[in-house]
C-alpha cells in the first residue's frame, strides 16, 4: 500500500497476505485490479466481486453518514450509483475513488488475523486487540483501549484530501486530525470528516461521541470534549 506496516501480536506473513488481497482488488496503480477495471469499463451496469460490492457499500454508507464529506465519487454523483447485491449501476464514465475506506478496511481485516493482544498499523492508522499506547502528532501519547485510531491531514502528502463541496484540495485550518473509533474504519472516517469540516470538526465529532484531537497549522492542539472527557474520566478511575 506504499506505506509502513507494523504488526504486533500476530503473524506478519498472514497480515501481509490480507493486505495484498486488498491491494490486488483496489489499487489504482495496478491496471489489473478490479477497481481499475471497473473504472475503465464503459458499461453502465456490471457485476462486481463480493469484496468490491461490500467495500463500495461501506463507501456509500460512509458518504451518507458524513453528508458527502467522504465520497467514493469525489462529489461527481454518488446519488446516481446503485448497488444491488453484486450488481452495480452507475453513469458511464463515473470512476470511483475508494481510498477513503479501503486502507482502514484492510487494517481491520488484517487485525482479525491477530492471535491475541497486539495491533496492526498501516501508515499510522491502526486497529488494536487489547490496550496499546500510541504516540500522537505534535507530541504526547494516548492509550487505545479498544477499536482503532487514525490520523488524516496534509502533513505527509500535502493537500491531498479533496473537499467534495468545492472539488478542490481542502483548505482546512488543521494540519492533522486524529480520531478514535470502534474500528480503524470508524476512526479513519471520523478523522477525514473532522479534517474536512475545518472549524466545525471538533463539534461534529462530539455530536457523534467520537474522540478527536486536532493539530492546528500553528502547532496548537485542540481536543474535543469526547477526547478530553475520555482521558479525564479514565485518569480519575485509575
Amino acid at each position, binding site marked *: 500500500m506504499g506505506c509502513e506496516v507494523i504488526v504486533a501480536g500476530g503473524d506478519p506473513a498472514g497480515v501481509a497476505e490480507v493486505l495484498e488481497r486488498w491491494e490486488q482488488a483496489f489499487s489504482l496503480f495496478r491496471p489489473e485490479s478490479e477497481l481499475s477495471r471497473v473504472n475503465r469499463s464503459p458499461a453502465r451496469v456490471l457485476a462486481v466481486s463480493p469484496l468490491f460490492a461490500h467495500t463500495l457499500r461501506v463507501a456509500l454508507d460512509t458518504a451518507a453518514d458524513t453528508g458527502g464529506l467522504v465520497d467514493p465519487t469525489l462529489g461527481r454523483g454518488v446519488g446516481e450509483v446503485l448497488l444491488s447485491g453484486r450488481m452495480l449501476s452507475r453513469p458511464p464514465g463515473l470512476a470511483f475513488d475508494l481510498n477513503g475506506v479501503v486502507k482502514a478496511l484492510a487494517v481491520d481485516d488484517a487485525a482479525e488475523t491477530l492471535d491475541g493482544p497486539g495491533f496492526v498499523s498501516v501508515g499510522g492508522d491502526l486497529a488494536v486487540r487489547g490496550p496499546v499506547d500510541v504516540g*500522537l502528532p505534535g507530541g504526547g501519547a*494516548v492509550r*487505545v483501549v479498544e477499536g482503532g*485510531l487514525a490520523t488524516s491531514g496534509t502533513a505527509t*502528502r500535502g493537500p491531498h484530501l479533496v473537499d467534495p463541496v468545492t472539488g478542490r484540495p481542502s483548505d482546512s485550518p488543521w494540519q492533522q486530525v486524529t480520531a*478514535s473509533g470502534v474500528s480503524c*474504519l470508524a476512526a479513519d472516517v471520523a478523522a477525514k470528516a473532522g479534517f474536512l469540516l475545518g472549524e466545525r470538526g471538533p463539534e461534529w465529532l462530539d455530536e457523534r461521541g467520537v474522540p478527536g484531537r486536532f493539530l492546528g497549522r500553528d502547532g496548537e492542539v485542540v481536543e474535543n470534549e469526547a477526547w478530553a472527557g475520555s*482521558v479525564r474520566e479514565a485518569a480519575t478511575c485509575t
Partner: protein
Amino acid sequence: MAKESRIERARGRARAAKTAIGALGLLVFGVAFVGAKTHAPGHTKGQATPLGAPSSFERAVHNSIAKGGQIAPAVQPPPIVTSTS
C-alpha cells in the same frame, strides 16, 4: 267519468311507482358507485408514499459508521505513532 277517473288514478299510481323505482335505482347506483370508489379504487386518491420505512425510523435504527472508540491516558512509552500517510 268515473271510469276515466279510475284510469287516471291508475296512471298516477303507475307514474308514482316508476318515479319511486327510478329514484331507488339512482340511489342504489349512487351508493354502489361511491362504495366502489372508496373500497376498490382503480387509481391512487392521494399522493403516493414510498413503500420503504419512514425516514425517522431509518434514522433511529441506522448504524452509523463513525462511532467513537475507547481511549485512556498512556501509561508507558508508545511503541507506535499515528500520523498521516
